């Protein structure tokens, strides 16, 4: 429902702000003085109540829609003797599962983590590539306010918005911790960070190995560092993805400004590869975090 409403609203916006031509408003940027700069953040397109719908959110919705349609088509076509789509999906899933096995070292654990990691991979990949489509970032409208005209693209790659990457990174890190709690138990998992067990061990083992009085406080301190590490994971995951994709968009825009024909093509290919690699990195790191969280600490 909201999607339909929002699409209608989009069209109204286009027509409303760009009435003189039915062409994309990017075309009119040469004729009028419009500031056309790439912002670090996603621009708001319209509001529903007090909820702001940004251009990257629109893109994200498109990706969700596309993936849903793809999944539904796949589900409809699933048969014992696979068709072309199914065998393609099977090859990819089989390969991805093998890759996951090389990280987790256990098919059962891979099977548990796999849906999450694979969904992350597909979602990021599609969003990365959607951001490269012609029209995304170049179709938009001109917003006038504060005495200046600003070009606002209607679509923006969802992963070129920190909100998306941060949401995914938070999901990955919190998800891995919840997964860890489920796999090794809440007490053991809690002790990875606040290592009460290390202190509890000191009086029990001090006669056998006196060095424990030095070792275990260090262990406990390492646990505290782990907490910071979790926050660092969120930051590194979100900023890596955001930075790469955003930089790609800036790069393509810059190339297009220098010379709009042919020149951006190699960079376009580069960005396709970067999109794939970044999706893969995000998914693999998520897999690694899940795996680490699901293994009990060795003593």
């Amino acid at each position: 429902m909201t999607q339909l409403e929002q699409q209608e609203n989009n069209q109204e916006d286009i027509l409303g702000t760009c009435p003189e031509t039915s062409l994309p408003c990017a075309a009119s940027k040469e004729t009028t003085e419009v500031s056309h700069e790439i912002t670090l953040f996603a621009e708001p397109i319209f509001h529903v109540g007090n909820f702001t719908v940004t251009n990257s959110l629109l893109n994200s919705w498109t990706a969700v829609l596309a993936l849903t349609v793809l999944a539904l088509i796949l589900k409809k076509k699933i048969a014992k003797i696979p068709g072309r789509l199914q065998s393609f999906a099977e090859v990819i899933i089989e390969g991805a599962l093998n890759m996951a096995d090389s990280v987790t070292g256990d098919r059962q654990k891979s099977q548990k983590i796999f849906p999450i990691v694979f969904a992350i991979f597909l979602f990021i990949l599609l969003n990365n590539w959607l951001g490269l489509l012609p029209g995304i970032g170049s179709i938009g409208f001109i917003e006038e306010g504060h005495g200046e005209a600003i070009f606002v693209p209607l679509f923006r790659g969802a992963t070129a918005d920190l909100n998306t990457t941060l949401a995914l990174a938070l999901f990955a890190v919190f998800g891995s911790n919840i997964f860890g709690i489920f796999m090794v138990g809440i007490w053991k998992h809690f002790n990875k960070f606040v290592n009460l067990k290390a202190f509890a061990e000191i009086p029990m083992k001090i006669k056998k190995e006196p060095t424990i009085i030095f070792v275990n406080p260090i262990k406990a301190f390492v646990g505290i560092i782990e907490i910071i590490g979790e926050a660092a994971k969120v930051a590194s995951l979100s900023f890596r993805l955001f930075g790469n994709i955003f930089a790609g968009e800036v790069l393509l825009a810059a190339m297009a400004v220098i010379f709009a024909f042919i020149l951006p093509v190699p960079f376009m290919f580069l960005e396709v590869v970067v999109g794939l690699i970044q999706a893969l990195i995000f998914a693999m790191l998520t897999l690694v975090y899940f795996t680490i969280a699901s293994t009990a600490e060795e003593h």
Partner: protein
Amino acid sequence: MEELIKTFHIDWKLLIAQLVNFGIVLLVIWKFALKPLNKVMDKRGKEIAKSLEDARAIEANLAKSEKEREERILAAKKEAQEIIETSRNQGKQQGQEIIESAKREVQTVIAAAKEQIANEKDRMIKEIKTEVSQLVVLTTKKVLTEVLDENLDSKMIENSLKKIN
């Protein structure tokens, strides 16, 4: 932190919206694609394994029945050989027996014939003896009646009888 939020326009509502988006993707991919696909793949894998197993079993069975057939043929051949052998032996034996019995019969027949002949001979000799003695008696009677007296006669008869005996 404030600066960060301002620079990147971090909005918790948008964050949640993106999270929801991802949640939908996760759900859809899992429910509609991965789960049924996995099921089908597992099923197919199992089926392939089973059919391979079946094929192996069938092959083994085939080899077994082939072997059995050969064995049976071999046994039948052996049996036939045995039957022929025994029948041949039996035939031989029977022939031998027939010959033997024939021989025996011949022997008995010959023996019987010999005995009969011997008996016949004895009887003849006996008959001849009696006849000859009668003849002698007659002839001597005749001779003596004409030539000799009673004394001589009886003496002579006795002597001659003694000689004969």
